[in-house]
């Protein structure tokens, strides 16, 4: 319970008000420049693909050395497999949202490889995405089970008699855990991307003025050797965010499916 109130210093730290070891993130306007960069990359890809889609995208032309058909198809199949595998047969309708999360976060993480900071290395952007994600989960839960059914889902299993008191406690706990999902999603992404930045900065510090060429000091950017593992983090974190959104969706939209087609439910879960 205490941890809920302990996020205040965290938010202060993200706003750069912590003092000597404050957050080195961009200002509000600076963050928007990076968000605009991410959106520019995404919209440029879409604008490239849109006119004459069948010739440009589906004829296997290459963009930046990558076969654009192959890469987009692989991304789509990856997301589709994630949705259908985690949520079940009705998971296909959540693909657009999950795909959007994946692409925004992945491009935002890639920006972190080339620029001193990135949108996903800032807690406010991540918290915004997490709020959208959890809000979407609530909305889909209400669409699947109705508002009352969705709220009843928080109370856990149906308990007889006086045990309804326990249901009330479970309801409160589930509400708190639902709120903490926002914090956990955003903090995980922020910690991984910003942690990579801090590690690179610390390793650059090691190689500062390491070679002395008679008055001219040369530095070696050791942090650059972290780039491969940062790339791995970028892919994995984008995947984990969308995967966890899938898991939350599957938890919330599970019930109505359970009654209808109980027979063939396990088959598409493969």
């Amino acid at each position, binding site marked *: 319970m205490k*941890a809920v109130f*302990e*996020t*205040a*210093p*965290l938010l*202060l*730290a993200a706003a750069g008000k*912590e003092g000597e*070891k404050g957050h080195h993130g961009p200002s509000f306007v600076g963050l928007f420049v990076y968000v605009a960069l991410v959106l520019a990359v995404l919209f440029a890809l879409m604008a490239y693909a849109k006119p004459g889609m069948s010739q440009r995208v589906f004829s296997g032309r290459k963009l930046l050395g990558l076969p654009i058909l192959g890469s987009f198809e692989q991304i789509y199949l990856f997301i589709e*497999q*994630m949705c259908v*595998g*985690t949520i079940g047969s009705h998971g296909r309708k959540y693909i657009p949202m999950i795909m959007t999360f994946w692409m925004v976060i992945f491009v935002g993480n890639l920006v972190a490889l080339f620029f001193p900071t990135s949108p996903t290395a800032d807690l406010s952007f991540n918290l915004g995405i997490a709020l959208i994600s959890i809000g979407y989960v609530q909305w889909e839960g209400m669409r699947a089970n109705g508002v009352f059914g969705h709220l009843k889902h928080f109370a856990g299993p149906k308990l007889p008699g006086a045990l309804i008191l326990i249901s009330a406690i479970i309801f409160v706990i589930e509400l708190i855990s639902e709120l903490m999902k926002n914090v*956990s999603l955003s*903090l*995980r992404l*922020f*910690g*991984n991307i910003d*942690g990579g930045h801090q590690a690179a900065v610390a390793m650059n510090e090691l190689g500062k003025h390491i070679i002395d060429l008679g008055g001219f000091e040369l530095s070696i950017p050791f942090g650059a050797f972290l780039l491969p593992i940062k790339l791995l983090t970028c892919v*994995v974190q984008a*995947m*984990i965010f969308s*995967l*966890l959104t899938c*898991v939350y969706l599957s938890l919330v939209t599970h019930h109505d499916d359970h009654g209808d087609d109980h027979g063939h439910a396990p088959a598409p879960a493969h």
Partner: protein
Amino acid sequence: MTGNVLGLGIGIAAFGVAIGLGLIGYSAMQGMARQPEAIGKLQTAMLIALAFVELVFLLVVFIVPGSVR
């Protein structure tokens, strides 16, 4: 609280979390070696578990320095 004590605490947290991550990777790899056709499912479950264990360390790193002073 001085920075040194804080660093020690974070080191202890990293110690435990590293053991946890190692256990997850160990068992997932063992499962994958025994059942190579289940690699996709095992990877998904492994990544979710990794994310939850990692979050503990991130919570320590970002919340403890703010609350201890």
